[in-house]
């Protein structure tokens, strides 16, 4: 009797001290919040995407009806196009910017830390409504930049009134938040062995040759990482477009996330909005997958 009791105590103790138990216990807060705040909503949105659903009423099943309508929805098609425009122009611009500043800041000076911090600030505050409002003022019809352009002779020019140019301030606002990519680039630059540069210098390579033949190849895995991260955040752009242009004029900046928000919350088609988000997810996954697939051709790993 006593023996079995000791054994069972022992097994409870060993269960509690088991590495797996401890691991799961520590991970529990994350697992719980991930399940409740991400997994369950995702599963629900997948279900709703096959339904007609308005908040406050019960969903009714329509099969693939929503996806079928999406294929004919010109506004949604347009929102994919303008999002691609935003991503294709905005992401490379941001990465080039980040790399440039990161390289300028690799020279160890006393002010290096200070500058890095300063350039990182926009990334901390950039997604906020306040910054979007500042941007609206800056590029607005009465702002200094439009004033300058009009002064140069473009009478009546106005970024946000033009379907051709409305996207530009939004892209610039995104590129301005290059801080996190910059930090990752900076640490990547530090990893490149100094002797490569020394050897190339002795061989007489100029600064451009050194950049294209040493820096870029050695940095390519970091570029891949930054590219993927920025692509994903680029696809999800929302705040600036909502605050500054409200998707206009004539849907020129009606990015997917904004379109989804409007369908769901303004127009009361929550099921249809869910279907749109799943299409967006598949699109993003497809593009990311494509980049991963091709990355073996253009990334270089030492050893």
């Amino acid at each position: 009797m006593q023996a079995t009791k000791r054994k069972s105590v022992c097994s409870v103790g060993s269960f509690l001290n088991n590495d797996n138990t401890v691991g799961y216990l520590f991970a529990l807060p994350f697992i719980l919040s991930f399940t409740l705040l991400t997994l369950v909503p995702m599963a629900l949105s997948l279900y709703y995407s096959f339904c007609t659903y308005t908040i406050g009423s019960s969903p009714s099943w329509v099969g693939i009806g929503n996806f079928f309508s999406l294929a004919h929805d010109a506004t949604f098609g347009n929102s994919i196009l303008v999002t691609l425009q935003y991503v294709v122009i905005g992401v490379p611009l941001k990465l080039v910017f980040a790399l440039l500043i990161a390289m300028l800041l690799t020279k160890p000076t006393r002010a290096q830390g200070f500058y890095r911090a300063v350039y990182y600030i926009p990334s901390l505050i950039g997604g906020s409504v306040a910054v979007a409002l500042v941007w609206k003022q800056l590029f607005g019809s009465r702002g200094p930049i439009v004033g300058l352009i009009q002064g140069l002779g473009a009478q009546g020019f106005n970024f946000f009134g033009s379907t051709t140019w409305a996207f530009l301030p939004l892209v610039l606002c995104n590129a301005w938040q290059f801080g996190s990519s910059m930090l990752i680039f900076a640490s990547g630059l530090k990893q490149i062995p100094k002797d490569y540069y020394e050897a190339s210098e002795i061989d007489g390579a100029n600064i451009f040759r050194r950049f294209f033949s040493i820096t870029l190849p050695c940095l390519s895995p970091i570029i891949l990482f930054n590219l993927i991260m920025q692509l994903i955040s680029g696809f999800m752009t929302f705040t600036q477009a909502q605050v500054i242009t409200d998707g206009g004029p004539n849907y020129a900046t009606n990015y997917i996330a904004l379109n989804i928000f409007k369908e769901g919350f303004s127009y009361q088609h929550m099921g249809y909005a869910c279907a749109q988000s799943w299409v967006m997810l598949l699109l993003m996954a497809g593009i990311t997958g494509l980049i991963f697939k091709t990355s073996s051709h253009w990334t270089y790993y030492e050893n």
Partner: protein
Amino acid sequence: MRKFMVYLVMAALLLCSLSVPALAEEKAEGWNNVNAEGYVFPDYTGETLSIMWWGSNTRAEMTEKVIHLWEEHTGAKVEFEWYDGGTYWTQFQAKMAAGTLTDVFQMGNNWLTYYNTIEPLNEYIDEGIIDTTAIGPAMIATTVNQANGDVTGMSNGTNARCFAYNPAIFDKAGVEYPTATWTWEDFAEAGRAIFAETGKPAITTLEYNSLAYSVFTQWKEGYNFYSMDGTAFAFDGDTEPLAYLFDLLTTLQQEGVIADYGIQNEIGSNIEADWIAYGDSAMIMLSSNQFQALSKVAAENGITLELATIPRVSEDGQSGMVVRSSQQMSMWNGSEKKEMAANFINYFINSVEANKILNCERGVSINSDVLAALKENADEVTGKVYTIIDLIGSFADAANTSPAEPAANEEISDVLKKTYFQGLAEGKFESAEEAAELFWAEAQEIWAKFEN
């Protein structure tokens, strides 16, 4: 045992018959009139009530003051939250989905969209908890669901869409001021003359969807964009009025007379940022209750503004204007404190003391006692608002109350503006007629989505 039961039933019956007269006893009409001398507020010590609304900072300050007054009177605690007009509906829907709406909430003319959250107030009005002795039936009608007679809320006041203009710029351009019956031709002529004089857009803000709805009413007697009960379109599929407005406004915008959509969007609902307040444009469209906030900024820049009606298709035709409820206080049907909520609404709508603080910023009060008290010492700007509301109220076709906005309206009006008005300006349609016809087709498609 059986005998005992009989006694018990008889005793119960007796009690019932005793209490019937007490229940049936009519309370005197106006028993809950908060303005009456010696009125005793109900005691809600230890209880809480929750409220939400949308609006500006100014509105929030005023509303908080009124809430604190009511708290002092009744001993209740009021939990309140407020948002800007855009965020409000997102919050509202989140609370609606979670079943945690506030006991009282501000509701717009889009109440049909949120109909299943709203407690009809008929019972509270019949019992007199919400006192309507000083509110005319026409004023109550502004928030009634015409389909079934439900009172969906108490109007916070009436307003009308109209135009504000800067007479100084009209003088400079040598143009006559708008009259009560000015037409779209007068409007275009004035706009062009002002643009020629100043080189800046003469008109900076237009509410495209409601202008379109107005032009339908102006076009022919009996036309309306939506029927009064909000269950159908009411213009016989006639796209001519819309083509007329498409053509007029797009031409003027391409000439530079009307500000481009970028400028209009920048101003958005932030009326205080409108160019007219800085002397840079001459005319805008607005809701009459926005005039006080606008005039305040304009006055800081030394500008005096006036109010005018919406231009008409023809001088002797219909006005297409309507005095409507600006917004209303509604009660959540899931509230556990309905009587308390009704008492709050009663105070908020009817109290002279409260409305002196609120000062018709939400709209011209529907309570005649309140309005009389406010008119007595109205400042010049508020006086102009009263005058235009009285003028519009005197137009024959404005006797209609505002139609209920169908659930599809949000999408239809957005599409009208963004796809068709803005698309036409971008040259995406052959002609105004084509745009009007395509809009009509899409409007019906959108309508059908809400049918099932």
